[in-house]
């Protein structure tokens, strides 16, 4: 057990691929403690990897990635930004607020944090720098507002949580919308105050004719949230069907309406989607093998009672879970963390009286926060990769955003209705 934990932590920190970390420490454990059973258990592990990769609900993931990839390489992001800028650009903090709103909407369009960092961040950062914002502010802003995308449907975090715990993915999608908007408002207020105090970056007000032009150009992009959220809310689409519809819409939008999609770019989108799918799914498969093994070793039974203490209150349970996910997601990719931790905690936490959908929202929010938190949040490395800036510059302005995100978590724990209102409405409750 100790050996297992040590090998896991060491491989993680020294930069082993997560896939190898998970499968390798499992194999090590099996061969040291159960050598006579090893061949059988290893075959079972293969079986678990297959089980992890093939649940029908996961089929929507490559489709959401594909639609994100198609529009990220196309014109949608730029048009979306121009549209929002025309409306809020003249306010104090207009450009950072544009970034916030664009990230939120692009999250609704693409469902991928990395696509959001690349598409919105890549466009907004030069504009923000021109307007006189400090580099570390722009990076902190982009990394953290892209994390809102994790809460806005279609979010891969929700899909993975839903698959791992058999919770309705559609309901989880709906539960993320208002918490996401709450964070958007908090971030925007911060940007407003920051820019007012530092007195930077105000743009001239756009005229009405300009506004109408950019709306005409940008409005079709808003079809994505309508298809995905509307389709799931009204029950027309399952998440997989919504994903297929999103791909269809992305193809139509970029070929017929914006005419920006070339054959080469389409093929490249297919390839990139395939690679990302492989990388993500093998992690989900390895995670499945891992959580099966954890169940087999009866780790939850050993770990949870001392962690929660005797007869814990609901608040204590929630706080512990939130902290565990937050810390885990600082070190591990959120998908892996959610997939491995959720089956351990979910039964216990739900039996303590916490709504499974609220739990999913909180967990996904923590995954978003953890992955943007120094020193190890993986979004920081994404930003480093995309903008090629030194590490310290990327994390230089994280603290205010981190504090706001923690505040959002507290608000969500105190007022769970923020998350639960919309799914309850959809269920007709």
């Amino acid at each position, binding site marked *: 057990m100790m050996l297992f934990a040590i090998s896991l932590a060491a491989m993680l920190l020294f930069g082993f691929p997560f896939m190898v970390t998970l499968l390798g420490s499992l194999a090590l454990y099996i061969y040291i403690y159960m050598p006579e059973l090893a061949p059988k258990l290893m075959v079972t592990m293969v079986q678990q990897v297959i089980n992890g990769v093939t649940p029908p609900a996961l089929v929507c993931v490559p489709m959401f990635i594909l639609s994100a990839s198609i529009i990220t390489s196309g014109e949608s992001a730029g048009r979306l930004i121009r549209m929002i800028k025309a409306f809020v650009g003249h306010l104090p903090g207009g450009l950072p607020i544009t970034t916030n709103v664009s990230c939120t909407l692009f999250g609704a369009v693409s469902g991928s944090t990395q696509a959001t960092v690349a598409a919105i961040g890549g466009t907004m950062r030069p504009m923000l720098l021109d307007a006189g914002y400090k580099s570390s502010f722009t990076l902190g802003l982009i990394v953290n507002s892209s994390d809102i995308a994790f809460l806005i449907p279609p979010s891969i975090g929700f899909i993975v949580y839903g698959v791992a715990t058999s919770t309705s993915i559609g309901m989880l999608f709906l539960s993320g919308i208002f918490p996401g908007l709450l964070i958007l408002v908090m971030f925007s207020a911060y940007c407003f105050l920051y820019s007012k105090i530092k007195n930077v970056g105000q743009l001239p007000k756009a005229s009405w004719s300009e506004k109408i032009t950019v709306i005409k150009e940008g409005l079709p992009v808003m079809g994505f949230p309508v298809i995905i959220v509307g389709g799931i809310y009204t029950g027309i689409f399952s998440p997989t069907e919504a994903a297929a519809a999103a791909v269809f819409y992305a193809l139509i939008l970029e070929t017929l309406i914006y005419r920006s999609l070339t054959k080469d770019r389409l093929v490249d989108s297919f390839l990139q989607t395939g690679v990302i799918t492989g990388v993500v*799914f093998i992690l989900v498969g390895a995670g499945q093998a891992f959580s099966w093994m954890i169940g087999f070793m009866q780790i939850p039974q050993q770990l949870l009672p001392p962690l929660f203490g005797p007869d814990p209150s609901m608040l204590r349970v929630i706080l512990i879970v939130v902290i565990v996910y937050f810390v885990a997601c600082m070190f591990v990719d959120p998908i892996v963390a959610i997939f491995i931790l959720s089956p351990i905690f979910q039964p216990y936490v739900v039996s303590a009286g916490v709504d499974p959908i609220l739990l999913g929202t909180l967990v996904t929010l923590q995954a978003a926060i953890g992955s943007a938190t120094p020193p190890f949040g993986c979004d920081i490395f994404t930003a480093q990769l995309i903008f090629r800036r030194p590490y310290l510059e990327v994390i230089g302005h994280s603290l205010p955003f981190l504090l706001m995100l923690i505040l959002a978590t507290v608000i969500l724990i105190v007022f769970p209705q923020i998350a639960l209102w919309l799914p309850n409405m959809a269920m007709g409750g």
Partner: protein
Amino acid sequence: MNQDRTQDKKRNFFQRWNRYIGHAINTIEVSILVFCVASLAVLLIANVIARTFFQSLYFADEISRFLVMLTTFTGVSYAVRRARHIRMGAFLDAMPLKMEKVFILIICTVSAVVMGMMAWFSYEYLMNAMSRGHLTPALRAPTWTFYIIIPIGFGLACIQYIRTIIKNLTEKDVWQSPEQQSEYEDEQIGGAQL
């Protein structure tokens, strides 16, 4: 291109074959990935249309499962070759180059062993499935055909890790994968140059 060819002459027999095989594997992997994602998209879109106007395609679930598995395990080996697997590289990046090289050698050795084991046991799993001879519910195809790609994918991933080791031993620079010197090069991120 010309320079490429003169370099090619300087390479010995082993290195040249390594290159040819690399090209062939690249072509095959890329075609599988592109084909799978494209057909998955077509299938799912067709299914939505069919469900709306007629009835769901009875084979859609099964084929999409098959395509997802094909994509996943092809992607595993492609991602090793291009150093795309998710990992936490913070410490590794901060190390001095010589130490980084030692660590990469260790990582690749362990990874190759783990992938090799996975390849071996998934081959056994495949053999088990073949001997049981189950058929899939909708298409009445033998279940084991779904699993062929798994040992191949893990096996190729193992070979790519071994290639990385060889590359690092024969050349002075640090190589993250047989075809990628650092994680940050050659990454085309669409939209970033908008």
